């Protein structure tokens, strides 16, 4: 419910004329920024869970991830509908002109299989391990989203740097965690061997 607040606020401001002189641009930017925020939040769950050992956090991950997809869809729809008004020829010409659109589009498309396979049934059908591998696509989406944001602005300010740093930190955490896991495994191996024998 709280995750819908940004949308409600945006709709409220839109209806009351509180947006700027260029409301379509406001809607594009606002949905875009919430997409990247939810992507960062999704990525933050696992590290938080490991650090705090609050394993219940995992129940929020799917919902937050789906909200990232939800705002991403609104953002994409805004572009297709409000910004370009279904002018497919213009869109096709626009995309190669604007690398930031291409990378945004790629990031968004990679979220589709994740959203589709988010149900319990799909997780069971794929099997946990394959599902895990598939859902690592979010790492690419997150990096793509940061590049999208950096490429679309005229001058890079602290905002783009903040998101890029957050994504980098969250991915680095996973890498370090994995390396730590591997080294732990190594030190435990001699002890394991006799057991296995």
């Amino acid at each position: 419910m709280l995750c819908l607040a940004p949308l409600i606020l945006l709709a409220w401001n839109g209806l009351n004329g509180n947006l700027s002189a260029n409301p379509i641009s406001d809607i594009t930017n606002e949905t875009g920024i919430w997409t990247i925020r939810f992507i960062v939040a999704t990525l933050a769950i696992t590290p938080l869970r490991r650090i705090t050992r609050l394993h219940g956090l995992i129940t929020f991950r799917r919902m937050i991830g789906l909200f990232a997809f939800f705002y991403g869809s609104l953002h994409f729809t805004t572009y297709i509908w409000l910004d370009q008004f279904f002018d497919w020829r213009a869109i096709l010409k626009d995309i190669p002109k604007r690398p930031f659109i291409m990378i945004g589009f790629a990031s968004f498309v990679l979220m589709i299989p994740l959203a589709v396979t988010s149900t319990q049934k799909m997780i069971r059908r794929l099997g946990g391990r394959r599902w895990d591998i598939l859902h690592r696509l979010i790492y690419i989406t997150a990096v793509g989203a940061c590049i999208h944001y950096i490429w679309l602005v005229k001058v890079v300010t602290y905002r783009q740097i903040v998101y890029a740093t957050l994504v980098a930190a969250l991915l680095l955490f996973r890498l370090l965690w994995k390396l730590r896991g591997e080294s732990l495994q190594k030190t435990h191996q001699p002890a394991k061997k006799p057991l296995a024998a």
Partner: protein
Amino acid sequence: MAANRKNDINPSEITDEGLYRNRREFMRTASLAVAGAAALSLLPKNISIAHAQDSRTWKPNHPSQSDTKEELTPFKDITSYNNFYEFGVDKDDPAQYAGTLKTQPWSVAVDGHVKKPAVYHLEDILKGESMEDRIYRHRCVEGWSMVIPWLGFPLANLIKRVEPASKAKYVAFQTKFAPDEMPGQRTSALRWPYVEGLRMDEAMHPLSLLAVGLYGKSLPNQDGAPIRLVVPWKYGFKSIKSIVKISFVESLPPTAWNLATPNEYGFYSNVNPEVDHPRWSQARERRIGEFFKRKTLMFNGYADQVAGLYSGMDLRKDF
């Protein structure tokens, strides 16, 4: 959104001619009075006359040949949706933070290859100039546009008064540098102070304007008070705001956005739908207040008047 902005239909279309003339005459007298008040307000005691006019009923004094007949962008939009990085990178930052800019007293230094170099008080620059309303299209490099009724005088007038030497091939401009008044200058968003430049023939062109007001009122700070350049056939960032220095130079002067990203912003930066910005298309634009995008016109619709300045130039190379 767009529906409630359908106000400014040209009265001649709906009113019979005689009545229209009378009204036009009345408007002219009325707005002369107001323009006079606006000019007065530029003198030392800067009296705000912001309440004097409603932008919907506003009509230009001295309608000029170059005026566009397109619907004016509302005063509120022109003064709340700005790019003025000296006050922040968001569109609403200038309206929010530009209040701290001190525009009194104001002086403009004129230097370089010129017969009358000096630091001029703004009042002395404005003395003897008759202010004209000019309704210009304004096209931002980001792909949005407005129609703005400026109040000002031709840049050429000032140039002639200070008598440049023949060595002067370019005119360079500089915005005020005062980080304590302009919070954006405490960040490194751009290299400060903001600088811009024109070739001498561009600067002398009758369309090039030094604006001191809009909608018949003195300029709000966020729109570049107290004096700014307006070059309507170029992208908005060429029209430098809050000018404190004008230099007459021999070689191509540096310009702020070109310094920031040279491959994206050229010295000329003429509005040109055929030459895209490296990261986005320039073929269309969204007029503020409208839903559908419209086609961008060559030289922002001023090709008849300015194309001659660039004959023989490759505008792809000199973008």
